[in-house]
């Protein structure tokens, strides 16, 4: 029986720790490449590696892209909002398909949308 719970499990803890160690090690290697001078890297034999310019450029590119993503997400949300004259503000396919005559005698009426005509304004 497969259990689908969000609670901590041993496998999740292990994979999380492996990812943590891997990311720390990857960061250490990145710093190593960024700080070691070019001549030392050439002397070891690593000649065809990217320019040191990219050690600064890539993080800055990523951060600027992140900032723009926040603004863009807000803009995309506002663009996708239905305008005031759209029928989507009133009803949609699922609401139109509701039937009004499913009431059994003495039973609880099924869930239905409340109509827009508001009788509580008249008090």
């Amino acid at each position, binding site marked *: 029986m497969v259990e689908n719970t969000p609670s901590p499990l041993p496998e999740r803890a292990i994979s999380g720790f492996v990812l943590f160690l891997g990311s720390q090690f990857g960061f250490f290697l990145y710093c190593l490449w960024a700080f070691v001078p070019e001549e030392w890297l050439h002397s070891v034999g690593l000649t065809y590696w990217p320019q040191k310019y990219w050690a600064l450029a890539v993080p800055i590119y990523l951060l600027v892209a992140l900032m723009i993503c926040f603004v863009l997400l807000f803009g995309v949300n*506002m663009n996708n909002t239905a305008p*005031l*004259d759209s029928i989507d503000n*009133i009803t949609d396919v699922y609401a139109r398909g509701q039937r009004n005559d499913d009431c059994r005698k003495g039973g609880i009426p099924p869930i239905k949308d409340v109509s827009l005509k508001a009788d509580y*304004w008249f008090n």
Partner: protein
Amino acid sequence: MEDEAFTDINGKSISLDCHSHSGLCREFTVSSPKVSIGKVMVYTCSVWLSAYAVFFFTENTAVLSCAIFVTLVGMMLHIHFVKVDHESLLVIGSLGIQVSSSYASGRETTTFIEMGKIKDIVINEAIYMHQIIYYLCVLLKDPSEADAVSSVVPLFQSSKPRLNCLVKVYKSCQEILSKC
């Protein structure tokens, strides 16, 4: 004719005028505040000062004449196409409703919707930019199909009044619509 202190969704004050022509015919007019001379002067001065600053650095007189042209054309387009002076809703029982908006330059646009196409006039709330507002809208239906809403016409779009103003108009409209 009643005039209380109504405001629109941004807090600017508007005025509502309800006029009952007869038992079956009522007209509601929502007026926005007029163009203020202070705002006009601020905009004109800022545009001309920045144009003068650009001229000071580039020594190109075309910038100045361009700025004058832009402000004049911009003001004319604004009062003719953008700035709404008042919007009115005329409800005539069993005939239809007429929606008209008149701009600051005197231009008037009018739309008539016949009663056979009108399903109801309701206050709906919807998301508008970053807020949720109430707005009055006419629900239209196909004359052949009496149950389904075919389209929505929002009313008082330029001078979006707040709920107290909309409730007044709504109650008055429903009295007429329920009679016919």
